[in-house]
């Protein structure tokens, strides 16, 4: 067992592998989470995000690889010895206990006297905005209230790390949005590092300091929300965040002179290692301008308008490129265009993102 050192990251997952039968749910996942960080693992169902979370908690064992907390190898420690907190999707509050008893559950071993215990419980209830709820039976609370009790319960023993497994997915839309902001506030107020699992891209972008995107057990990309949104690494990431075009083409030239070439435009990419095959680039819908006054940093190309989809705040214009590929541009102002119109589109060249191959 390694000694904890100041320089060690709070959580270090070292090339962890896990298989269920012949389905790989974690394929050499390697990541680090720092103190006070809100870290999100994002992916569709079956991507392995929950499995990785359960391996951090100790509820699952990795087939291979190590898990370190503050530099200490906890891979072989059972869940009750890891000093972590966990919030479950379906709350998992103890139905035979009151709110206060639920929150106090993990404090039994902390040797607090009655007054201190009561003090800590009411502190936590204030934190999750449920003051005065001490003596209510948990079974009579609404979904949002139950989940807040579960969060308070998990935070009560001051865990080194709070793990959250899709905690908002059982709640309805409106409460979910309120809870997103509240969770972020709670995280800031306590300074506890959160590892959050979700399949909801909006949730990930709203709350996280960094997001890891997983697919088929592979870690595809780790980045801050804005970078992830603007600079998807692979086709999967680009398509997972709705509102991206993936345009396929081919490479001409080689090495540092590699040029991406498709029917609409050419783009100097420089050296692209491990490029997607066939070569492809991502362009976000809102980065495409319709019939613009050209500027020097933009690439322009012709397209034919296929259809117009009104989406409320913005409108999607669906164009066909010369080679038949579809490209969608979103605009907030209603361009007076009819299907069949030939238009000129423009994109800033630094907003055209060459894509890499999916990890395998």
């Amino acid at each position, binding site marked *: 067992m390694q000694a904890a050192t100041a320089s060690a990251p709070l959580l270090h997952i070292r090339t962890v592998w896990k298989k269920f039968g012949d389905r790989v749910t974690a394929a050499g996942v390697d990541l680090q989470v720092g103190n006070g960080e809100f870290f999100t693992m994002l992916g569709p169902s079956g991507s392995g995000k929950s499995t990785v979370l359960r391996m951090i*908690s100790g509820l699952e064992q990795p087939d291979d690889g190590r898990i370190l907390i503050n530099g200490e190898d906890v891979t072989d420690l059972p869940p009750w010895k890891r000093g972590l907190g966990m919030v479950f999707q379906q709350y998992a509050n*103890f139905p035979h206990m009151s709110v206060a008893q639920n929150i106090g559950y993990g404090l039994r071993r902390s040797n607090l006297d009655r007054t201190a215990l009561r003090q800590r419980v009411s502190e936590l209830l204030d934190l999750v905005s449920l003051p005065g709820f001490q003596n209510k039976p948990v079974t009579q609370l609404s979904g949002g209230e139950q989940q807040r009790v579960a969060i308070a319960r998990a935070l009560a023993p001051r865990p080194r790390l709070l793990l959250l497994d899709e905690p908002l997915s059982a709640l309805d839309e409106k409460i979910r949005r309120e809870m997103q902001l509240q969770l972020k506030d709670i995280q800031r107020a306590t300074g506890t590092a959160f590892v959050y699992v979700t399949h909801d891209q909006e949730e990930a972008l709203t709350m996280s300091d960094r997001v890891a995107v997983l697919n088929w057990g592979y870690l595809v990309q780790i980045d801050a929300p804005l970078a992830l949104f603007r600079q998807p690494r692979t086709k999967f990431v680009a398509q997972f965040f709705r509102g991206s075009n993936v345009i396929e083409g081919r490479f001409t030239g080689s090495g540092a002179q590699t040029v991406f070439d498709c029917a609409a435009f050419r783009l100097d990419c420089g050296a692209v290692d491990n490029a997607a095959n066939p070569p492809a680039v991502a362009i976000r819908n809102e980065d495409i301008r319709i019939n613009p006054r050209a500027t020097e940093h933009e690439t322009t190309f012709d397209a034919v308008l296929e259809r117009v989809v009104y989406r409320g705040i913005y409108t999607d214009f669906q164009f066909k490129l010369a080679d038949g590929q579809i490209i969608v541009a979103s605009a907030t102002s209603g361009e007076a265009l009819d299907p069949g119109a030939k238009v000129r589109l423009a994109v800033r060249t630094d907003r055209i993102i060459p894509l890499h191959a999916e990890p395998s």
Partner: protein
Amino acid sequence: MSIALKRRDAGTVALLGGPVLICAIAIIAPLALTLMVSFWERQMIGMKPGFTLASYALFFDGARFTVLERSFWMAASATIIMLAIAYPAAYLATFKLAPQRTRIFLFLLSVPFLVNYVIRTFAWAYLLGRTGPVNGLLQVLGLTAAPVDWLLFSDFAVYLGLVAAYMPFMVYPIWLSLSAIDRRLIEASWMLGEPPLGTFLRVVLPLSLPGVSAAAIFGFVGSFGEVAVSQILGGVGYQLMGNAITSSLDVLNYPMAAAMSSVVVGCMLLMLTLWLRVFDLRLFLGKMLGR
């Protein structure tokens, strides 16, 4: 249920009416008759309507009351022994067996009930007898020189018979309440730093108490009213309450049999009432265990 009752439509009345009627004819009426007869006067042959407490006085005075006490302790201790076997069995079936095997296990528990229980009890008498296979085996193994006497016609034999007769019934309600516990509650407890034993005491056990309570009622009521096991495995003169009642009937002392039955039924009702209070207080019990 309560909504359906409020509506009082024809369907509800028909659905509830049948069972209520059967209950009245098959249970309430005979019990009322029994209670009535217990106050009648005994005559040389048969009895005469009237009101006398003679049968009760005789019962509470004599040796028969000792039998009641003994039956009570026998049933209570047998219930505790049976819970001590049924709970671990149900626990293993719920948490340690694969679902496929759990089904087989539960089916196997019901197999003995395919045979009439008097025949089953006689089979025990054969197995445990002086010349039975158990004694034979003990002697072949050299564990005893002569046949062991306390195997049959003893408290041991009666306990064994009661366990064999009622314990399997008790696994089901406990298994039901254990398997209804959300596994994530157990995981949540672990994540809060509580190791498996603490988790069992603070989460699993309190949440399974309703099943334990139902099982205890099954076991106790069955053992308290037992006749065959005590007669066949207890031997001549071994008397539990059920035997005392049948022997009164044998000598045609109907008022006495009725008085004893009434006392037993009264005891049961009293105990069930107390039990249901505990049952209702399970939240309270859980609170105590969960602090």
